[in-house]
């Protein structure tokens, strides 16, 4: 009985140890660094598309959430970090498109101005 009891205790110990081990492994699991790298690249791409001027709020939120994601990841809150990282990249992507839109608007306005003067030049008697 004792050996059986001891065996149960030993199994319980191993199971507990395994659970604790796996639990600590889960808690210690962090998001891969490449995810942060990709998020930073998304922000840099947005900056290159002049989002810092035309979509500064989105860009700022992207940077802020990237920072928060890093902090949460470091604190072991992987799921929260993952969501924040996901949201950071969405902000960066929107900032990039808005930056491109601003550039396109500038080009379009310049083109329209050129067209107006060109038409005036051609129709000049």
């Amino acid at each position, binding site marked *: 009985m004792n050996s059986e009891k001891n065996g149960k205790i030993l199994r319980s110990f191993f199971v507990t140890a395994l659970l604790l081990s796996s639990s600590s492994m889960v808690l210690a699991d962090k*998001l*891969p660094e490449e*995810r942060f790298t*990709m998020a930073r690249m998304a922000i840099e791409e947005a900056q290159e598309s002049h989002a810092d001027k035309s979509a500064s709020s989105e860009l700022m939120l992207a940077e802020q959430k990237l920072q928060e994601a890093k902090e949460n990841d470091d604190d072991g809150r*992987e*799921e*929260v970090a*993952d*969501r924040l*990282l*996901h*949201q950071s*990249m*969405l*902000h960066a*992507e*929107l900032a990039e*498109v*808005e930056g*491109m*839109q601003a550039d*396109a*608007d500038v*080009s*379009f306005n310049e*083109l*329209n101005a*050129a*067209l107006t003067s*060109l*038409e005036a*030049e*051609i129709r000049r008697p």
Partner: protein
Amino acid sequence: MIFSKHFMQKKSLASAVKVTVLASFVALAGCASLPPHPELEALQTRYEVMSGQSYASQEAQDELVKTRDAIALGRDAYERDDDDELSHYIFVADKNLDIAEARIELYETRAQIASATEVRENLLREGRDFDVARAEAEARAATADARLAQSDAARSGAALSAQQTQLALREAELRDQERELDVKDAELAAKQAQLEAAEREAQALADELEEVSMVVNERGTVLVLSDIMFDFDSAALKPGSENALNKIAQFLINQDSSDLKVEGHTDSLGTDGYNLVLSSDRAESVRDALVARGVPRERISIAGYGEDYPVASNDGEAGRQLNRRVEIVLNDQVGRPVGIGAR
């Protein structure tokens, strides 16, 4: 949106478990269900509207797919009452729709840029064509101007040449006329000299002969033969008139360039008809006497005027004697007799 494989694998596993549990719960709960989540429904509507746009599926395909998945996962979280996850997927769906809208707007703007660029190229081409057409038109106008100028010059030259020719002709005509005038002047001068000479000779003749007098009037030089050369009431010349006729004939022969007109006149005594016949007969007698003395007949014309051209009053004998006369007109300038009673 980039999802973490690592996380997604775990989430897939978790979702599978959750779905199973949820399915079991639903099965146990029978027909029990949650009310629609307002934000999720709004996102669903927005997603469907955007998916219906013709080019959205191309320009924002990734974002729409991610939106659709996020809404589905959001519904799942809602059913599991996981507020954090629900909020996250609502955010993800909303943000993907924002990105989709931004991409569509960008697509539209770029399409407008392409269209404007095409318009600009057309305008530039039109401008180039216009410039070419204008240059051609200007070249044609210049050519036309040159031709016109050439034509004008030719026309001006021709007109000038014609004017010069006409002027030369006119000058030649004037020179001819001047020459003619000179000739005529010379002729006139000669004639005048001749007349003056004739006048002098006639005057000398008149001075010499009692029966003859001379007058110079508008008709020219006129020798007046008095009636004493004729028998009374007769056209026959008296024999005593021989000397005078000889000298008159010689004088007229000397004036060989002039035509002669012999005119007979009477006084007013007697009838007109008688006087006309008498005046004509006397003129004829004088002509015949002159012709007999060598004056060419063709130089002499005769006329009888009766009493129509008196040179003095017929009231007295002295006047009537003057009216009875034969005139020899040299170089007649008028063509008819002149006298105080001319009618």
